[in-house]
C-alpha cells in the first residue's frame, strides 16, 4: 500500500522522535552517558532473549530489555556506592556487558539472524518487509513496536510530568515533598531500555545513542520551556529521519548512519545560528550591546 520508502521513513521518524523525547530528560538530569550505557548493555539481553524464545518477538524482548536496562542501572549504582567513580562505573559496566553481547552474537551467529554489523547499525531497509497485523491493520512490526513504546513513553511522562520535572530540576526538594525520586529514576531507565530495544532492529545499538542525545540537545538550544523542548526534539527527530533517508537513498549509504549525520548537522547549525542560544546570535547581541555602550559614552 504505502511505499517502501514511506515505511522506512516512518520507522526512522518514530525511532528518532521517541528516543529524542525520552532523551531530553537524560540530558537535563546529566545522565547522557547512562543512556549510552543502557543502550549498549541491552545487547546481551537481546541475544539471550532471542536464543531462549527463538524469535525477536515484541513483548518478551521488551520485558527482557527492561530488566537488563534496570539491572545495568543498578549495577552502575552499586559500583558507584562501592567507591568507583561514576564515569568509571558506567564505563566498566557497559563495555563488559556489550563485550559479552558481541561474544554471544559471534558464537551463535548462525542461530540468530543477527550479525555483528547488524548489531551496530541495524537493518532499517528490511523493516517494511516484516509485517504484523494488529486489529486488522497491517504495518511493519518495527512500526508497531516503536510506535507502542513511543505512546507508552508519552503516557508515562504525561502522567508523571510534574514529578519528573521537579525531580530533574531539584531532586532535594522533590524528595522533601515526598516524590519517590529513586522510583522515577528507574522508571525513566526502564523507558530508555524499551526505546533502545525497540529501536535496535532499525538503527542498531550504537546509533540509538545518537537519537537519544542529539535531538534533545538541539532542542535545548532553542527554548526555555520544557514542554517546547520536548516537542521540538520530536520535530527534529522526524526531520533527521526523513532527511537522512533521502540522503542515504541518493548516495547509497547506511540509512541509519545518514539519519544520525543529518541530526548532527542540524545540531551544528543550531549550535551556531539558534536565535537564542546560538554562538552567532550571542556574538551579534554582544556586539550590538557594545556599540550601544560606545554611543552612550
Amino acid at each position: 500500500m504505502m511505499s517502501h520508502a514511506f515505511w522506512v521513513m516512518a520507522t526512522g521518524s518514530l525511532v528518532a522522535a521517541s528516543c529524542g523525547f525520552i532523551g531530553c530528560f537524560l540530558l537535563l538530569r546529566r545522565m547522557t552517558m547512562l543512556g549510552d550505557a543502557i543502550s549498549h548493555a541491552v545487547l546481551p539481553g537481546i541475544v539471550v532473549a532471542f536464543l531462549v524464545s527463538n524469535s525477536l518477538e515484541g513483548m518478551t524482548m521488551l520485558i527482557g530489555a527492561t530488566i537488563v536496562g534496570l539491572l545495568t542501572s543498578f549495577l552502575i549504582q552499586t559500583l558507584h556506592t562501592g567507591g568507583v567513580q561514576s564515569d568509571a562505573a558506567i564505563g566498566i559496566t557497559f563495555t563488559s556487558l556489550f563485550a559479552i553481547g558481541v561474544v554471544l552474537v559471534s558464537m551463535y551467529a548462525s542461530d540468530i539472524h543477527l550479525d555483528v554489523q547488524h548489531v551496530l547499525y541495524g537493518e532499517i531497509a528490511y523493516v517494511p518487509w516484516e509485517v504484523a497485523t494488529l486489529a486488522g491493520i497491517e504495518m511493519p512490526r518495527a512500526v508497531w513496536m516503536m510506535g507502542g513504546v513511543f505512546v507508552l513513553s508519552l503516557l508515562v511522562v504525561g502522567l508523571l510530568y510534574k514529578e519528573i520535572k521537579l525531580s530533574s530540576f531539584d531532586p532535594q526538594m522533590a524528595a522533601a515533598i515526598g516524590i519517590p525520586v529513586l522510583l522515577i529514576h528507574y522508571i525513566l531507565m526502564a523507558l530508555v531500555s524499551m526505546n533502545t530495544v525497540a529501536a535496535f532492529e532499525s538503527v542498531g545499538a550504537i546509533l540509538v545513542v545518537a537519537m537519544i542525545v542529539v535531538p534533545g540537545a538541539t532542542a535545548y538550544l532553542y527554548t526555555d520551556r520544557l514542554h517546547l523542548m520536548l516537542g521540538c526534539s520530536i520535530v527534529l527527530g522526524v526531520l533527521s529521519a526523513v532527511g537522512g533517508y533521502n540522503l542515504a537513498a541518493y548516495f547509497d549509504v547506511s540509512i541509519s548512519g545518514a539519519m544520525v549525520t543529518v541530526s548532527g548537522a542540524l545540531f551544528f547549525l543550531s549550535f551556531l545560528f539558534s536565535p537564542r542560544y546560538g554562538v552567532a546570535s550571542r556574538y551579534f547581541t554582544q556586539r550590538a550591546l557594545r556599540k550601544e555602550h560606545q554611543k552612550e559614552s
Partner: protein
Amino acid sequence: MTSAVTVENMTVAYHKKPVLREISFEAPEGKLIGIMGPNGAGKSTLIKGILGLVPLASGKVGIYGKPYKIQRKLVGYIPQRESVDWDFPTSALDVVLMGRYGHAGMFRRLRAADREFAFSCLEKVGMSDFADRQISQLSGGQQQRIFLARALAQDASVYFMDEPFVGVDAATERAIVSLLNELKKQGKTVLVVHHDVQTVTDYFDWLLLVNLRKIAFGPTEEVFTSENLQKAYGGRLSFTETLVPSAGIKS
C-alpha cells in the same frame, strides 16, 4: 504553646565521625528560630536530618507531633542556592509553581487557582516582573527570592531555611526579613540556619546554639549569653564579651 517541631535524641554521623549528637529540642509554634553554631557544627545537617534528607543514626522527629513523612504538606524547605541546575528550561513563575506540587498530588494537573497563587507569591517577594524570565538570567539575590516565593507557594506551617542571607544584596536581604516577619504574623514557625552573629538578635525570637551537641535553646535574650557563645564557638573571651553587651543583652 504547641510544639511545631520536636526533635528527640537525634544523632547523625558521616563516615563514623559524628556530626550531631543526641540533639533534643521542642520548637514552639509561631516563632522565628535562629540556628547558630560554628562552621561544620552540623546546622545544615540538622535541617536535613529533620527532613529525612540524610539518614539518622538515632533519634526521632515530629512535626506537630506526627512523623515527618505524614506531615510533608505542612513543611517548606529553602535550601542553599547551589543545589539546582540554573540552565534548566524553566521560568521564574514555573519554579514558584513547583511549590504547589505537594498540594496537587501525584498524577494531578495544576489549576488556575494554583497559577494565581503562585503569581501572588512572586509579587510578595517583588519579582512579579520577572515571571517569564528563564532563571539563569536572574542575579543571585533574585534567584534566592524565587526560592522564597516557592516556599511561600507551598503554604506550609513550618519553614526551614538554610543560610538564606549568605551573599545576597541589600534589597534581597530586606525582602527576606520582611518575609520572615510576614510569616510570623501568619502564625507560621520558621527555623533558619544563620551565619551572622551580629544580626541574630535583631531577626530571631528564639535561638538554638549547636556545636555537635545542643549547647542551648530558648528565647534569644536567655540564650545569647557570653557563656553559651563561648561553649558554642570556643573563641577567645574578648570576642564574646564585646558582642554580648553590644547586643544590649545582659551577660
